[in-house]
């Protein structure tokens, strides 16, 4: 029983737009828009990964930007040491993110609620200061990636269109995985834990184990976004891990709709386009952005996806 709904229609239009964007960029000769949207797609990927633990798992991580840095530094540092192959860089970026998530998750998941938020934030800030201290890799100033990841002719990351489609494929791939995960046995357990942890323990689920695995999956996905981001900007610096970046990701998720499959993508698109658009009008764009976000959070519970869902019923 497939029924028409506004949110489905809007999602479909958005996805079609993302797929056709390079064509538009080519026809109109507007190269800038492709660069902008490459960044949007990468951050949408990061937001989608955060949504897995925050929206579906109920784990309010305030340190998700750390993975952007870890994935990015894995690419940057390997490139600097002469390892240019993407077949090495990307797996290392994912593995490093997974290990970081495993350690941070094992420690953070001992706490709940606001303490969990604070401890994930604290670890991300630690990662930020560690990166600032890496004198060999640029320290505070960051690290320039002189050559993008080399996939030996399979795909050329320096080609704007190819790179854009690589990012988009990664985003769709991750969303497909998340879709499978949330409907799997594992996903139901994780969502059950979000809903009522005491009940889940009483029917026989060891809560932490499942939450930790979810935390690691999410971190690994975000590490992928980090590796792509470093390639996109040809640069990685501690700033990508700063806590305001983690905040941006949270805002994207909440804005788009927590616990929905495409909400984070919607959130990333709207948030970053607004930021781009408003900052062209005025230097004080944050003054407009803030209240706008406030309105959506206050009146649109469930974010944009929630609003669209209500349009459908109303």
């Amino acid at each position, binding site marked *: 029983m497939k029924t028409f709904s506004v949110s489905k229609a809007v999602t479909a239009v958005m996805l079609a737009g993302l797929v056709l964007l390079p064509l538009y960029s080519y026809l109109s000769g507007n190269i800038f828009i492709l660069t902008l949207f490459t960044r949007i797609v990468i951050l949408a990927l990061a937001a989608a990964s955060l949504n897995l633990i925050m929206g579906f798992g109920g784990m309010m991580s305030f340190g998700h930007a750390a993975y952007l840095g870890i994935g990015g530094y894995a690419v940057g540092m390997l490139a600097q040491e002469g390892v240019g192959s993407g077949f090495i860089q990307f797996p290392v970026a994912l593995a490093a993110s997974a290990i970081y998530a495993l350690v941070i998750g094992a420690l953070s998941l001992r706490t709940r609620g606001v303490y969990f938020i604070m401890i994930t934030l604290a670890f991300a800030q630690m990662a930020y200061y560690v990166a600032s201290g890496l004198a060999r890799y640029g320290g505070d100033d960051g690290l320039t990636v002189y050559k993008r990841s080399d996939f030996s002719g399979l795909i050329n990351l320096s080609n704007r269109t190819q790179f854009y489609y690589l990012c988009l494929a990664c985003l769709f791939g991750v969303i497909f995985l998340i879709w*499978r*995960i949330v*409907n799997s046995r*594992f996903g139901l*357990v994780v969502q059950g834990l979000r*809903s009522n942890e005491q009940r889940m323990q009483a029917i026989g689920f060891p809560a932490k184990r499942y939450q930790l695995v979810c935390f690691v999956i999410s971190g690994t996905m975000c590490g992928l976004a980090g590796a792509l981001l470093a390639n996109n900007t040809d640069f990685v610096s501690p700033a990508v891990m700063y806590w305001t970046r983690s905040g941006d990701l949270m805002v994207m998720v909440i804005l788009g709709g927590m616990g929905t499959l495409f909400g984070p993508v919607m959130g990333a698109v709207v948030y970053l386009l607004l930021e781009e658009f408003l900052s062209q009008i005025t230097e004080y764009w944050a003054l407009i952005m803030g209240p706008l976000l406030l309105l959506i959070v206050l009146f649109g519970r469930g974010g944009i996806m929630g609003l669209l869902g209500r349009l459908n019923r109303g």
Partner: protein
Amino acid sequence: MAEPLLRVEKLVRRFGGIVATDNVSLDVAAGELHAIIGPNGAGKTTLISQLTGHLEPHSGSVSLGGRDITYLPAYRRCALGLARSFQITSLLLDFTAADNVALAAQAHAGHSFRFFANARKEKGLRDAAHAALDRVGLAHRADVLVSKLSHGERRQIELAVALASKPKLLLLDEPMAGLGVTESQGMVKLLQELRREVSIVLVEHDMPAVFALADRISVLVYGRVIASGDPAAIRANEDVKRAYLGDQHVVTHHG
């Protein structure tokens, strides 16, 4: 006598200066329905929480089927065949009734580190869920969100969730709490049927229900078991009358 299914020995739990569980010992034989009664604040829920693993005792031991489970975490006890219902309904409100029960079945069908196949399409789990829902008479409400169900229906779901794990021993913490007269009668009838399949520890305030159902009753007052025996013996027990039942005409009325 054979090894009892559940054996509680000299259990002690203090909260500050208050001894909430004071040297409690009791046995539950396989197939028995053992009721625990006592006035408010007698330590019934504290005792249940130590049986389920939500609270650790300061001394004493709990064993299930001969195995010491005193310090096992809740989820491990559950795997050994101990299921509970909560005094205050505790369900996954944003899940359907069927999902709630299917998750309980899933918890006992191997590990859940399966990431790809759609769990809602696993026939084994769905069938188990529907069987349990059918058992409590709620099969027709399977696809309704729990948040949309009435209080009485939620109490029944609690029971279905406990049943879906195919327990050896069911700990029911006030299953009649907040139910209307008809609903209570329905619950008593249901428990009459269930007791043939599973051993039950029943904590309940509803005296007519307790006396109608129990094989044996233990009376808890100030954390201590002051009497334990069959319903007739408890009704005749002078200590019980004085300490607890004294002016509750329900019991005399019932007898």
